[in-house]
């Protein structure tokens, strides 16, 4: 799936995790380490599939589970108005 992070969402990384701010809504969100890696991958490539390879390289997780969780994470970002599927 192709995903595009909204331009008005800012990320601030802290010790491998991150804080997000949506300038549009004024809401803050937190990302854990996996979410932060996935987020940064989405920004760089716009791809959810290849994000899986990146997290598998860093965490003890199977590819199948990683893909399921990354896809669910992407859905959650879109539902929260932080990103859009393109």
């Amino acid at each position: 799936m192709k995903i595009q992070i909204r331009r008005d969402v800012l990320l601030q990384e802290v010790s491998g995790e991150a804080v997000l701010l949506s300038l549009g809504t004024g809401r803050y969100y937190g990302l854990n380490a996996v979410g932060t890696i996935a987020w940064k991958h989405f920004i760089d490539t716009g791809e959810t599939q290849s994000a899986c390879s990146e997290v598998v390289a860093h965490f003890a997780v199977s590819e199948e589970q990683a893909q399921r969780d990354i896809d669910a994470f992407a859905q959650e970002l879109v539902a929260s108005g932080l990103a859009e599927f393109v």
Partner: protein
Amino acid sequence: MPVSTVLSILRHTVDPASFVFCARLCSLSECLDVAVHHQVLGLVGPRLLETESDESNARKTLTSHLRYYASHALAMVAELTLLAKVFNSARVRWTSYKGPVLAKRLYGDFASRHSVDLDVLIHPDDLVQCWETLHTLGYEPLYKIDRRVHDLFCQNAYEAVWVHRQRRVTLDVHWAIAARSLPFGLSLASPELFSETIEIGGIEVPMLSPVANALALSIHGSKHGWQKLLWIADIARLVRNHPEADWSLLAANAKRVGALRMVQLGLRLAWGLFNIPPPNDPLLRTTDSTVHLLTLLALDPILARRTSPSFPMFLTCLPNNRLRRDALAQHFWRPTPLDLEAIPLPSRLQFTYPLIRMGRVAIKHVFHLEGRPWTRPRLADSPVPMSTDATS
């Protein structure tokens, strides 16, 4: 030892090509203390967390600081983008000044330069419009300046503090970077302070150009005795990141406004502490013995964590005695916002302000009859609430 450790990490942050030597024997809590004092915790904190230490309390404090810096920086950026929209629609000419925008430009990270306040620079002709705009946004001025002394306030002061109590923002509104009676009291009306824009969250936010920033930061650092490593790191990073900038313009502008020694001092400190040589311009590289002396005077308090004699150093930076007299007059005779708020005189009596000012200074310094030490009132910091965790 902790200063050396912090400096070593900071050097690597400013120039990743430099080697980091971290003394493992150094106390993390002492390093934390030094980093906070020099306002560089945002820059060295992540690296400090990576060092081996069994000081669990210090680690918790450090992590907590960094998390707070991250949230606070985003909150300040949000406020800045709101101000950008409002100022633009009200046709207030402005630019962001220092703060998270400079942090993003220099270090790629909004939280790398933590400051409690948000700073903006407003064109001096748009001040009234700016005040009205801030009122509509819910800001209040920290000093309640009576309308009888408002014009005098705008002439003598060059910044005013506004606070937004609900959003917990302290906004420093500058209309010059130093006293306007001095030639380096530059404003957005000055050709030396040209700006460009940076895109933040889809919004164009104006900021000073690298050369204008180097000039403004040098003046600011020299006014305050270069007491903070952050100010020197900023100069080093500006020079390192912008080899393409027209640094000869910096030299020419600085010389024209009487700030050349300030710029030379900042560059020399950046060279000495961060190994970033000055740009290749004869004026910027040539220094006189006064600048050498000032460099030593600035370095010693930094490394020994003492207070530097900032005002005498600042006077020494000035190119001639006429400017020194003007700076002294500005410091000792011109009424401050506190003077104007406390004693708002009608225009026919405002000529007495120098006497009032000298009297207040005398009471404070000569007769030691000051009350409690004055500290500028500040809103208490409050962590920004975190809402949804976007991961499952």
